[in-house]
């Protein structure tokens, strides 16, 4: 209700200042009236003009009158002015003539309007790199050389091949597919994209694995790569499984040419293998893993808006304000901030919301609309008076199903007071008639036979609410998507099916009772566990948005691991920034610090937690509505590479300490060596620690800059300087840092001989053993989560096999837990650099504020309820509920019986189905109701 979607629109200019901007928005005409369009698709059907379907990445055709895909939002058709015959040549208008609701309007003109807003968030995205100019890959010439986005569409069930993997030239199922990595990324020779696009390694592996699932195990998939960058959460495991379980081949090589095999559509690849030999191999298909780049028009807009860009044309941000652009009040999220994957984009986006919220907290709720509340009529105990509405959906339903017959039939069924049909039940006027009918006829239950409840149930329920009827006294049955559309050649059977479906819905709704949504207050105080950078960033953002916040930190000081770090990848001094941060947190009177304090108990649930804080043996309760867990991680203490036997062998953090102290000895070193993946990417700790490559490269640069004569070596397995961190890698190589790759089964060996530090390693280019005599060795050690089982149990949040917290959803809920009211950020989620930690802290806050801002929460009406008289106290419901909603009643008459907290229940019904005593009712989907539907399934008509 408070989001106005403005499609086919572009921002032209932004005037004004933070808090009060005027934005000029140009709206292009859709040529179809959004309010009238019912998405029946007749315009597209009648449109004679076929054009390339951009949604299917050009692999199929669509019409000039179109909707991008069946689930599009808004689900409204549009006419493409660049190809429409009428708009180009002045003749046709077939769509206009056939549209059943007169929605086509060719008189629409482009309009510019000025909107006043307090803040702007730029999330304009990226464009996939176009490989057309890479002549050696012949993308433009060879149909079986495709981009990764095209391959996504081929894999998709909604794509041009319905998910059957076939190659474009002859629609044959391929036997061998090759992926080429870094097409349009990490490349300054053939294009201008020095950055790593961060996502391509992972999506290529995913595509290869899924392709094998679709085609079968005999499909050979080879991925040609430079460095495998699987630095995200659970990514390394996926990579390992792709190699060992799925049998995807990984070839470390950049293919230099693709040639057609004469007389066939196959492709011949020439490449150099690791041992230096030239290979020729035939493939059926090549997928180019294209990178992300900022579209030129966006660069232009950024320049116009006075937003600074990085060398790679992404919006410039700083480590400690990761979503603020160079212009105050304008924030950035998604791929325009830097190439990134979906979870990181989601994190940034929530962070940008929090950043905008910090600025606008005092004017919150000044522009939003609130729904009017209509008093509810009490119908409890009344005889059901059911109103049945059959929607014709234009011809969508009525063209197949004999609607009048269904109406007539429905009116003969028990409890049916009224049955009628509507041309379009979802239209505004039909809604108004419905309200009147409910009032006039005293209807107390409604059955709607129309499209799908998944899209339209909320709309019709709002209509019930507007008529003063409890919104659960409603049942929708699907006679379009699951009937008229799929049985269009069998109108008789479709009509019979519609009757059955209507009868089943009537039987169910007759048993429906009004349901109550329990209103619960949300305590407006927040608790943050952990006082490191992430915890402080979260607390500060909460406080800035007006919430009292408590930080619980087990140490005596704030700062966490940040206290040990020297410099960010962008060259900012961490200690300076950290001191500012600690000062701003300490001086904020809305933030309450609990140092040397541990959490010893947590009671309650979303909006109403009571935690026990213990310090020096004193326990104090803290009531809070939300909790943010930012418990951090610690460095791995190495046992390998002779660590601890010689003081010249140190960890990255120990080197940071020397750099912070400006240790004069560093300049005098003749040589220094870094070893990567110490304790990471090992069988017992499979994940990549994400930040160590950048950290070592950065420190190598520091050493080189202190003393350009120093020999600096980095021994690595894959360099994972993702995003624009790749530029640091490039800089290090330019400064003469020597990179030597090793494999996990042939690790370097460190020893001391006659006071000398010696490292033996096999050089990957020469394929020769090397012996290096060095003055210092820095070990890039793994990041290990501070797993705290007690804390996990307190909040009923789980950790993965590596000890990191498991978020609600890996892609769409990265900063919150499945447990409502509990959020996470920082290293406790996964290793990450400071900018990402701060972004996630703000993201956790943004998510928390969506709850705090409501002040009260309503439980859903369709929740489970225990009949304590029947409950046998077996505890099955308590143990199986994924949301921890059931528990045993502690006192009172029903002590020991299960009860379900409606605030936590998601209405899945698992408990109800598992209850051996039949004591649990799932309201809205109760056993009796479903049994009634089953019984009415096939009554003789």
């Amino acid at each position, binding site marked *: 209700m408070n989001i106005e979607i403005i499609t086919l629109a572009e921002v032209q200019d932004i005037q004004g200042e933070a*808090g009060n901007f005027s934005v000029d928005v140009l709206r292009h005409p859709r040529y179809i009236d959004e309010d009238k369009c019912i998405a029946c698709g007749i315009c597209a059907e009648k449109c004679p003009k076929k054009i390339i379907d951009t949604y299917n990445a050009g692999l199929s055709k669509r019409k000039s009158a179109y909707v991008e895909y069946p689930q599009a939002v808004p689900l409204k058709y549009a006419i493409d002015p660049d190809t429409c015959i009428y708009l180009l040549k002045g003749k046709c208008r077939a769509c206009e003539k056939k549209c059943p609701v007169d929605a086509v309007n060719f008189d629409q003109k482009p309009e510019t309007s000025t909107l006043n807003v307090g803040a*702007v*968030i*730029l*999330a*304009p995205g990226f464009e996939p790199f176009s490989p057309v100019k890479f002549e050696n890959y012949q993308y433009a010439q060879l149909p079986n050389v495709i981009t990764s986005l095209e391959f996504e569409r081929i894999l998709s069930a909604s794509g041009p091949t319905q998910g059957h993997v076939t190659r474009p030239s002859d629609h044959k199922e391929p036997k061998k597919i090759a992926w080429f990595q870094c097409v349009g990324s990490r490349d300054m020779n053939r294009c201008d994209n020095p950055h790593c696009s961060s996502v391509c390694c992972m999506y290529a592996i995913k595509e290869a694995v899924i392709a094998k699932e679709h085609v079968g195990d005999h499909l050979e998939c080879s991925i040609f790569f430079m460095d495998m960058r699987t630095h995200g959460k659970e990514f390394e495991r996926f990579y390992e499984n792709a190699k060992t379980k799925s049998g995807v081949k990984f070839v470390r090589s950049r293919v230099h040419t693709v040639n057609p095999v004469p007389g066939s559509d196959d492709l011949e690849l020439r490449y150099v293998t690791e041992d230096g030999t030239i290979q020729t191999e035939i493939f059926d298909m090549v997928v180019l893993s294209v990178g992300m780049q900022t579209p030129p028009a966006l660069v232009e807009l950024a320049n116009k808006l006075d937003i600074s860009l990085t060398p790679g044309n992404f919006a410039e941000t700083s480590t400690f304000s990761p979503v603020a652009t160079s212009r105050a009040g304008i924030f950035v999220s*998604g791929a325009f901030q830097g190439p990134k994957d979906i979870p990181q*984009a989601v994190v940034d986006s929530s962070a940008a919301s929090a950043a905008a919220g910090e600025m606008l907290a005092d004017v919150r709720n000044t522009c939003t609309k609130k729904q009017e509340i209509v008093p509810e009529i009490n119908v409890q105990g009344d005889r059901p008076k059911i109103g049945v509405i059959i929607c014709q959906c234009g011809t969508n339903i009525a063209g197949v199903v004999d609607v009048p017959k269904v109406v007539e039939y429905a009116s003969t069924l028990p409890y049916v007071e009224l049955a009628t049909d509507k041309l379009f039940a979802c239209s505004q006027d039909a809604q108004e008639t419905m309200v009147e009918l409910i009032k006039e006829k005293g209807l107390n239950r409604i059955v709607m036979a129309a499209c799908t409840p998944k899209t339209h149930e909320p709309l019709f329920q709002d209509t019930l609410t507007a008529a003063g009827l409890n919104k659960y006294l409603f049942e929708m049955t699907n006679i379009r998507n699951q009937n008229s559309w799929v049985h269009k050649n069998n109108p008789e059977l479709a009509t019979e099916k519609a009757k059955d479906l209507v009868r089943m819905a009537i039987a169910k709704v007759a048993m429906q009772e009004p349901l109550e949504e329990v209103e619960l207050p949300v305590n407006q105080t927040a608790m943050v566990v952990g006082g490191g950078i992430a915890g402080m960033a979260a607390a500060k953002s909460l406080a800035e948005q007006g919430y009292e916040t408590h930080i619980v930190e087990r140490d005596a000081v704030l700062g966490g691991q940040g206290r040990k770090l020297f410099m960010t990848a962008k060259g900012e001094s961490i200690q300076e920034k950290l001191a500012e941060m600690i000062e701003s947190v300490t001086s904020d009177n809305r933030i309450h610090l609990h140092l040397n304090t541990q959490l010893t108990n947590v009671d309650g649930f979303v909006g109403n937690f009571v935690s026990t804080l213990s310090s020096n043996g004193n326990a104090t309760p803290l009531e809070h509505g939300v909790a943010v867990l930012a418990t951090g991680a610690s460095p791995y203490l190495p046992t390998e590479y002779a660590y601890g036997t010689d003081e010249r062998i140190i960890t990255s953090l120990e080197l940071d300490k020397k750099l912070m102290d400006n240790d004069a000895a560093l300049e005098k070193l003749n040589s220094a060596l870094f070893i990567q993946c110490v304790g990471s990417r090992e069988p017992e700790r499979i994940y990549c620690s994400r930040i160590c490559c950048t950290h070592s490269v950065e420190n190598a640069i520091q050493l080189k800059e202190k003393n350009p004569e120093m020999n600096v070596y980095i021994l690595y397995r894959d360099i994972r300087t993702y995003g624009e961190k790749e530029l640091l890698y490039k800089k290090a190589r330019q400064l003469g840092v020597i990179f030597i790759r090793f494999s996990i089964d042939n690790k370097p060996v460190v020893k001391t001989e006659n006071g000398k530090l010696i490292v033996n390693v096999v050089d990957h280019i020469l394929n020769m053993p090397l012996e290096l005599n060095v003055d210092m060795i820095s070990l890039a050690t793994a990041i290990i989560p501070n797993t705290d089982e007690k804390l996990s149990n307190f909040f009923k949040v789980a950790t993965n096999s590596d000890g990191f917290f498991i978020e609600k959803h890996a892609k769409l809920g990265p900063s919150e837990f499945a447990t409502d009211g509990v959020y996470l950020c920082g290293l406790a989620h996964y290793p990450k650099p400071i900018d990402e930690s701060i972004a996630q802290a703000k993201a956790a806050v943004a998510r928390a504020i969506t709850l705090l801002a409501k002040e009260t929460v309503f439980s859903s009406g369709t929740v489970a309820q225990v009949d304590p008289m029947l409950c046998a106290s077996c505890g099955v419901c308590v143990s199986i509920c994924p949301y921890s909603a059931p528990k045993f009643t502690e006192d009172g008459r029903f002590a020991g019986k299960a009860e379900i907290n409606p605030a936590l229940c998601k209405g899945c019904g698992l408990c109800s189905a598992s209850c051996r005593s039949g004591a649990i009712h799932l309201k809205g989907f109760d056993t009796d109701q479903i049994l009634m539907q089953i019984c009415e399934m096939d009554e003789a008509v």
Partner: protein
Amino acid sequence: MIKNKIGSVMVVGGGIAGMQSALDLADAGYYVYLVEKKASIGGVMAQLDKTFPTNDCAM
């Protein structure tokens, strides 16, 4: 101090990033204008088949 602060926010781009920002802001008490260049929101994610690690449909 900013004069005449306005309690609405414009989000430019209707992909996964823009949608997330819009939802967070609307739920936090701000009016949101979600400006999208194309005829519908969803962005590139709507074109993806499945996403790691659950191989959920990206829709």
